[in-house]
């Protein structure tokens, strides 16, 4: 059965200018209870790879540079 890509707007947004993942930081990826954040091979910055968010906040609260913002997922907003 062929698979399609399903588009969603993701709740966690990372400010690339502030993110220091390219310098080795992995804090937001480490703390996420749902393990939905990854570091991009292309930009070296953190991003939300899977739209499976509990809007719980550790990624935002623990980010050392204030680069991460958690929004309420659109379906709940």
């Amino acid at each position, binding site marked *: 059965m062929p698979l399609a890509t399903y588009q969603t707007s993701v709740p966690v947004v990372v400010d690339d200018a502030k993110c220091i993942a390219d310098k080795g930081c992995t804090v937001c990826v480490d703390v996420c209870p749902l*393990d939905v954040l990854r570091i991009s091979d292309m930009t070296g910055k953190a991003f939300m790879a899977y739209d*499976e968010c*509990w*809007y*719980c*906040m550790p990624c935002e609260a623990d980010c050392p540079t204030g680069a991460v913002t958690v929004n309420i997922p659109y379906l709940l907003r």
Partner: protein
Amino acid sequence: MAMDEIVDGLSEVSCDVLVIGGGTAGPMAALKAKMKNPKANVVLLEKANVKRSGAISMGMDGLNNAVIPGYATPEQYTKEITIANDGIVDQKAVYKYAQSCYGIIEELDSFGIRFLKNENGDYAVKKVHHIGTYVLPMPNGETVKKALYRQLRRARILISNRYMATRLLKSSDGRIAGAVSVNTRTAEILVIKAKAVILCMGAAGRLGLPTSGYMFGTYENAANSGDGYAMAYHAGAALANLECFQINPLIKDYNGPACAYVAGPFGAYTANNEDRRFIECDYWSGQMMLEFYNELLSGKGPVFLQLKHLHDKTIEEIEHTLHKVERPTRGLFQEGRGVDYRKESIEMHISEIGFCSGHSASGVFVDDNARTTVPGLYAAGDMASVPHNYMLGAFTNGSFAGLDAMEFADNHDFGEIDAGEIAMERERVMAPTKREDGIPPNQIEYKTRRLVNDYLQPPKVTRKYELGMRRLAEVREDMQERMIARNAHELLRALEVQSIMDCADMAAHASLFREESRWGLYHWRTDFPEKDNENWFCHTLLSKQDGRMTSEKREVQPYVVPIADDEKDLYDKQRIRASA
């Protein structure tokens, strides 16, 4: 190598006590086990990261069941919990908790976890329950996980993050022997041999589908997919009263607590569309939930949490807690909706169904030492059967589990593990990664949980349940034969949906077995609408026997604290009567 790429690998380690789940009960169990025997190896295995895992990922806004000398007695608390659970309680475990939890509060305080105190330095306990006073606010409760983590590091607990346990292993004599787990980012298998295992894997919170349709917008931490219930079941442990579902009154759509426990002591209350109270008490019980449900559906619905009558300063104080601790995005949500607590009441709704002894009374059956029915296997926290145990119960019962498990480990050697069993489990775990073509886990999960909503959520009707079970069996077949996982992360979800499916089957089976209505909305069977004490004043135990799901009755153990006849139905009188 890129993260999430599948690696075919297997390694084996061993330890004295294996604790699975690093949320609330797990860290305490690991600490207590290690303190009892500092020479022993204690491994704490966690599907996410112990720093931020579990129900208290962002802390907790208060203790909901603190039995503090001067405010409440263990006898009074035991009585209240017994009445709130329609009498189906083994009091010994509740009483032991009530006697011990004050010591745990003092210990948490020594870890640097702060509780509200009054000007004399005494704990400022508030009344929320129907009868007694047990709620201790934690306006600075955001530090709980950090404080626990410090203790774990100090005690040299071996922490393994990002490993999901999939099955328990037993030796031929029926004793626990370890667990199989899988790395959630590489899919490598790790077999852990252990003399004793403690399950602290949280609620089954991803069982029903939230009304928002967002699969991860659950009340419980969405990582809590019921893996502990499924593992205990497949290991042959008994599970108690699973028909006593957990359903909560929450902020509509946001699906987090509103939260009357925090705001109630300041004068806030649950109201209908006439701004009137309709329930006597905001404490979460099945009986209260039934009144809440009735009001939602009535002409006086929906239901609101009302704060607008309070002083500005008071509202500010409430906001400070609600928007900082436990579910801090509550403030962001209300801001997005343009809701100002000063002007508008908070619209509420009921949650999807789940299993969670934190608020109800179901779970892996344990005694007052947190022992399950499998020798060497323990359970604590939201997944174990001690009713209404909340965060403090997770800590306290986790502590009992840690102490007793270490004693068990000190007196037993490793159990023999059959290599064939490990090979079979490896094959089961990896199966979705071996298929070229099929259905992704998110579709299997959505369909399963949608069926749970359509057929299993109360009011429960036999014919609906039978249809639901047929539909679920069809999806199970798809899950077993056709589900695909294209990377390690998808495999994590594929394994979780297998736990969700097992929990759905158990919820259905347990509900059909108890042919009466009990615990208000939690087990409201409209084709058996009455409480039937003659036939059903008992626990129900569900277990896997000869490969089949089986339910049986178990007597309620003699009470430690007697309940007078005129006290038994206090929780049935939730609705405010119209007064002359």
